[in-house]
């Protein structure tokens, strides 16, 4: 184009230029390296530092990993094999301990012939979660999700089937009472439901269970709580606490958003209290104090007590997550529900919660990840968590005394896979939600 006055020289391109490759040094590996690793002196320094760090890490760790031994009966044997193969000064991992004891890390002291039960419970857990995980799943499956806690409980602890069935019946009866009274006395109905269920559990449940158990003894071999350990324990506590804490967290969140002063205050106090103290103090409460707070003579399983405290703990966090979901709902939704004449319960159940909970799922998953990691703390009240409880038990055996890194690495890897997977999933969910909500 000329430098002459443009207005007077219109320009029309007659042949289009085709795409040309970028000039050398502007493309390919050279360019990639220049742009991604050596752009400017700062980046070059960083790259070199990074390489040095990676080098030293690998130099320190790689031989240890490479010299790993998988087949040995004791730590001594491991060391001997390493010394033979790689020279007397060589260090190496003794993975044999994992090979020997991996079932214990996963299942604790759960009877080995019954391993299928926790595994089945885990598989069924995913089936129960399917309606949440995949929107396409038929809605009828939610019924199974509701039943799952009972199925899971029965599979894990075993015993007579009548125990979970009778407890479940309490819920059914309560629901029935509510349904029956719903139209006649809408405000009395929930109350009646609770009373009926409580009466059932407190009075009739036990005798009837025993009766049925003697007539029709169906059941699985029962497994006592002290056999629980390792990841079975972690998952049991984590999943139970999250499931149980959901209703409570929702109630707390609703209470916190309520405009009734007393209810709001109570809920705020509870949430802030729980969130203000470390989990470990709550666990100590479970193991040391809960017996003080309950009527003299009551005494129940430490796992159950831990689950109760962890549930309270999780409820406070879930409440905050759900509160966020509730706050994200536009006011118009409440108003439309009001204008249609839905009462408070109906509006919450049909309009508000389905939407708020959907928004909250990523937050709930994150809470679960945190909780799952925190289940390792139960070691401090004497339960055999996978990280330290089982590891210490393994180390107490004369065969594996003095083994440090391998169990930690093994357990850490499993935790990592679980948590990383879940956090990716929750990110994916978050993105999907963002898409759906524009």
């Amino acid at each position, binding site marked *: 184009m000329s430098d002459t006055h443009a207005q007077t020289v219109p320009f029309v391109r007659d042949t289009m230029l085709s795409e040309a490759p970028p000039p050398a040094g502007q493309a390919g590996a050279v360019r990639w390296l220049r742009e991604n690793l050596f752009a400017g002196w700062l980046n070059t320094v960083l790259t070199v530092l990074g390489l040095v760090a990676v080098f030293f890490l690998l130099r320190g760790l790689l031989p240890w990993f490479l010299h790993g031994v998988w087949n040995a009966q004791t730590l*001594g044997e491991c*060391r001997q094999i390493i010394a033979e193969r790689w020279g007397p000064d060589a260090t190496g991992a003794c993975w044999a301990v994992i090979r*020997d*004891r991996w079932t*214990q890390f996963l299942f*604790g*002291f759960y009877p*080995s012939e019954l391993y299928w039960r926790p595994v089945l419970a885990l598989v069924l857990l995913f089936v129960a979660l399917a309606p949440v995980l995949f929107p396409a799943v038929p809605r009828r499956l939610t019924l199974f999700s509701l039943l799952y806690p009972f199925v899971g409980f029965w599979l894990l602890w075993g015993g007579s089937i009548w125990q979970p069935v009778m407890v479940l019946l309490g819920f059914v009866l309560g629901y029935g009472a509510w349904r029956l009274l719903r139209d006649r006395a809408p405000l009395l109905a929930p109350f009646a439901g609770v009373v009926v269920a409580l009466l059932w559990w407190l009075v009739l449940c036990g005798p009837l269970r025993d009766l049925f158990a003697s007539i029709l003894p169906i059941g699985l071999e029962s497994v*006592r709580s*002290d*056999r629980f350990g390792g990841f079975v324990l972690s998952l049991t506590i984590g999943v139970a606490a999250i499931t149980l804490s959901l209703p409570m967290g929702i109630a707390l969140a609703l209470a916190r958003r309520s405009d009734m002063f007393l209810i709001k205050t109570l809920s705020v106090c509870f949430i802030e209290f729980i969130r203000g103290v470390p989990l470990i103090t709550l666990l100590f409460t479970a*193991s*040391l104090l809960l*017996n*003080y707070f309950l009527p003299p*003579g009551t*005494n129940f399983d*430490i796992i159950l007590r831990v689950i109760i405290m962890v549930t309270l703990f999780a409820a406070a966090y879930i409440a905050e997550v759900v509160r966020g979901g509730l706050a994200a709902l536009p006011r118009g939704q409440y108003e439309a529900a009001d204008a249609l004449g839905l009462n408070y319960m109906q509006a919450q159940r049909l309009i508000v919660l389905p939407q708020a909970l959907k928004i909250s799922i990523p937050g709930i998953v994150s809470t679960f990840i945190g909780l799952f990691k925190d289940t390792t703390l139960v070691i*401090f*009240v*004497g*339960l*055999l968590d996978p990280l330290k*409880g089982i590891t*210490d*038990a393994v*180390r*107490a*055996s*004369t065969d594996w*005394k*003095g083994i*440090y890194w391998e169990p930690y690495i093994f357990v850490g890897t499993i935790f990592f896979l679980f948590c990383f997977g879940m956090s990716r999933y929750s990110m994916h969910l978050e993105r999907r939600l963002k898409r759906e909500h524009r």
Partner: protein
Amino acid sequence: ATLDDVKARGELICGVNPGLTGFAAPDASGNWSGFDISLCRAIAGAVFGDGNKVRFVPTTSETRFTALASGEVDVLVRNSTWTFSRDADLGLDFAGVNYYDGQGFMVHQDLGVTSAKELDGATICIQTGTTTELNLADYFAVNGMSYTPVAVQSNAEGEQQYLAGACDAYTTDASGLAATRAAFATPADHIILPEIISKEPLGPATRQGDSQWNDIVRWTLNALVAAEEYGVTSANIEELSASSQNPEVRRLLGTEGTLGEMLGLDADWAANAISVGGNYGEIFAATIGEQTPIGLARGLNAQWTQGGLLYAPPFR
């Protein structure tokens, strides 16, 4: 009463240490064994006639007494030292001594130390929540020495810290030291110093205010001790209960008198207890004795007739 609860439940709940080699530890399939465990089983034997009707609840040194006081466990057999304040103030009653111990020190051989008196300025690993902390503080204060405590949470950790050289000395009950040292790759590189700085009578404890149950535990222990004294072993017990002429043995084994009834148990309660794992001596030999990797000598825990402190009151 505890006995009724236990009977109704059909099993005994015994609070134990989750990982003290030789005294209490679960194996790969969750079966517990050890010196303390054997006592629990003997008690279960006395109550039910079956040493397997017992459940072991791991307790940490911090939760153990609460577990007992709150009824979570029926009896605590967890290498707990019998002290005045624990007996009087903590709401529990000790039922005797199953192992006479004392707090000692283990040091690396190459440290060149031969006496605890030379430990001035040392770094010492110590388990928290135990009497050893108090003993250690007293001992160094009395001897005008200083030290740096490294608190550890469990025996496994203490061992690891000590082996890694994080402390010059590891202090705990001498039995524990021996058990720990025995499991080292090179036990000879470590020496246990001669000083025993405290008396550590370890024994089972029960909840306060239930003397019947306390008696059962106490006399089960005594029965094991007495059985050794009278030569009753798991091997000859059947024969002896049928044919023994020794009145004390006959009373012990329930072939004469009503001792069991007085405790609220069967007549052959003691026989049942003994037949679970043998008498005191047998249990000792099988779990921590010189033939085991732990390799403890009887020492103070020999019968009084052998120069030890084991002295069962008469069964009469």
